[in-house]
């Protein structure tokens, strides 16, 4: 270090060619300064000025545009949505990135995992939005997200055999929601026909065979649930040839209070039997679960869930960024510190909470702030996930600025005010960046 040349300040040639050095410097800087001046500095000044003028640009209206920004319904929705984005997404992305980074740290094949999670970073947010619009289709047969939910939901609460049906005779009353009940009480030894009609051909349960009217059973109740309809009609209430039994239907015996005291399910030919029926007034019923509708799917692209749906797409893209940056920070933490804590008997959770997270704090804050800025400017993904009809509900500041200025309204005054508002929101980060630089110099 001491062997360093003493003349650190001025290069040897500086004195002889000061004039030439000036022009050289200018030549190096000029292209950048011209581009930054024309495409960034001048527009900033222009946009700030323009925001105080009306739509035509001729009349100075001072802060009227800003007033509209906070009063017009569409723009207030945009600001509220953006506030939600700011409150939810940066924290969530940072947390997910931290979890992934910590989990992958000690796994040998972590590169494969990291590549999978990081890959969406290369995809445009616009295309990511298209991808998630396909995922978000409502019908569980078409949208993968709802298909996933349907698997869980149908396991917990399986759909019924029939989504809808009507009684074939007036003896059977009630609605599909509460179950269909026979008007007259039943007693042991009786045969109970429960005919249903109005079942669409494609919803007739599979596995049904020719319906059979069962024999009476001493001390018990037997019966049949069948599709009381055949090509040409048939006689209601009578089991005829070509009429199919309805399998898997829940049949209940209910007490006078309407409570089910016994239940069974039907065979492929539609028959069912209750053995050893208790005395008392009982009514036969087809249980409501028979008519439980299959899962219809969450309306991700509807007006109420559109913002969460877009956020999912956005987090899918950015989680990899957070993970990679935090993993690099994690790798920089000295192993000795962690090992020392473990040797002293600290649990993994304590090590994570008391050592890893505090040492990572600068990295976490960088990720958080980067995401904060990104989220304030969110635009493309909203346009591609949200169908046109819900774009007002999904609106955010950057999109509102574009739609106001170029999307048909063509109000450059108000559009400028929205842009300035966005600019003001990032100014704290701008100041932070400058402070950090000045501390380094």
């Amino acid at each position, binding site marked *: 270090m001491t062997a360093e040349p003493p003349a650190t300040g001025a290069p*040897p040639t500086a004195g002889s060619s000061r004039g030439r050095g000036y022009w*050289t410097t200018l030549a*190096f800087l000029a292209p950048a300064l011209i581009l930054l001046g024309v495409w960034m500095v001048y527009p900033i000044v*222009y946009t700030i000025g323009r925001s105080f003028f009306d739509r035509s640009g001729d009349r100075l209206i001072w802060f009227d545009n800003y007033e509209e920004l906070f009063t017009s319904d569409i723009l207030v929705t945009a600001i509220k949505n953006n506030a939600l984005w700011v409150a939810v997404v940066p924290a969530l992305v940072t947390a997910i990135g931290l979890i992934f980074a910590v989990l992958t740290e000690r796994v040998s094949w972590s590169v494969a995992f990291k590549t999978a999670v990081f890959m969406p970073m290369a995809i445009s947010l616009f295309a990511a939005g298209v991808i998630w619009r396909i995922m978000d289709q409502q019908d569980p047969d078409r949208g993968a997200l709802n298909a996933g939910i349907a698997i869980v939901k149908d396991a917990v609460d399986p759909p019924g055999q029939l989504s809808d049906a009507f009684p074939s005779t007036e003896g059977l009353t009630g609605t599909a929601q509460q179950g269909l009940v026979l008007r007259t009480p039943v007693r042991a030894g009786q045969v109970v026909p429960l005919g249903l009609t109005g079942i669409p051909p494609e919803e007739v349960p599979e596995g049904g065979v020719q319906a059979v009217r069962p024999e009476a059973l001493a001390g018990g109740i037997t019966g049949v649930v069948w599709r009381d309809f055949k090509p040409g009609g048939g006689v209601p209430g009578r089991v005829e040839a070509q009429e199919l039994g309805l399998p898997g239907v829940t049949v209940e015996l209910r007490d006078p209070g309407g409570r089910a005291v016994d239940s069974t399910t039907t065979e492929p030919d539609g028959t069912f039997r209750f053995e050893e029926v208790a005395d008392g007034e009982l009514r036969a019923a087809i249980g409501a679960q028979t008519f439980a509708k299959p899962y219809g799917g969450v309306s991700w692209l509807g007006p109420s869930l559109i913002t969460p749906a877009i956020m999912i797409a956005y987090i899918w893209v950015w989680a990899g960024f957070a993970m990679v940056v935090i993993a690099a920070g994690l790798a920089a933490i000295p192993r000795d510190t962690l090992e020392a804590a473990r040797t002293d008997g600290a649990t993994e959770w304590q090590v994570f909470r008391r050592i890893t997270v505090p040492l990572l704090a600068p990295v976490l804050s960088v990720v958080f702030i980067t995401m904060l800025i990104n989220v304030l400017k969110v635009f493309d993904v909203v346009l591609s996930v949200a169908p046109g009809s819900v774009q007002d509900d999904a609106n955010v500041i950057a999109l509102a600025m574009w739609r106001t200025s170029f999307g048909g309204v063509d109000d450059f005054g108000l559009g400028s005010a929205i842009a300035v508002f966005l600019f003001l929101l990032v100014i704290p980060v701008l100041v932070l960046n*400058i402070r950090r630089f000045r501390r380094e110099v």
Partner: protein
Amino acid sequence: MATAAVRRPNVVVREGAAPRILRVLGKAPVTMLLVVVGLLWLVPTLGLFLTSLLTPADFNERGWWQVFSKPSMTTFDNYRALFDNAAITDSLLTTAYIAVGSTVLPIMVAALAGYAFAWLEFPGRDWLFIGVIALLVVPLQMALIPIFSLYNTLGMFDTVIGLVLFHTAFGLPFAIFLLRNFFIGIPKELLEAARIDGASEIRIFVRLILPLGLPAIASLAIFQFLWTWNDLIVALTFARETQPITVAIFSQLRQFGSNIELIAPASFVSIAIPLAVFFAFQRYFVQGLLAGSVK
């Protein structure tokens, strides 16, 4: 004493075996979780690809995952139609022009400026650099309206050069910041030796700085390329006729269900190129990311 002496070996054995078992057991759920999450992360992209192989009738009937049980549903007709569609192939070319131009130009300009900020003495250097840092986070929405008017006046609307210049300007603050920070780490002795030998600044820049700065330049190139290839908002504002692929797809979104045979394959083609770049140069991409964010 005796019991302790008998016990000790036992304890030692336990300490050796227990952590190992714990480690394996402790890892199993984590491994499972990572496998599941990793696969889940790939599902949406796979879904787009498989959807791009469906006819619109099939798309409106059933989900893409059902091709696994019925592979005959898939067809490459969508891709054949896509590459026969002149509007789409033109827009892919336009995207390529924009992305390449918006990668090369800012790197050239930023390398020059980065060198000046790192190694040339001039009055107000730090203040000017603070100005560049201030521009880092300026939302491009601040420039859309004035540049729209400017391009209308100059007849630069709907031109590739107009888009390239806009991307270049907004890529510059980050590019200058990144390259200046990289160049400043080049050993001072190398530069001074070259200056003593009488090399001009241009010569030093071309022969010394650029080769040494190649890793940073590579990172930057990948960033600029991906960023501009993937752009929507700039092109949507300044290019109505000379459409890049994102704008071309955007104009089809209104009839999502019926245009899916175009939207899905076009989207997949539009992400295939950035993905290829990403997989080929992942290392530089990560380096650039870290240099840009962690400081």
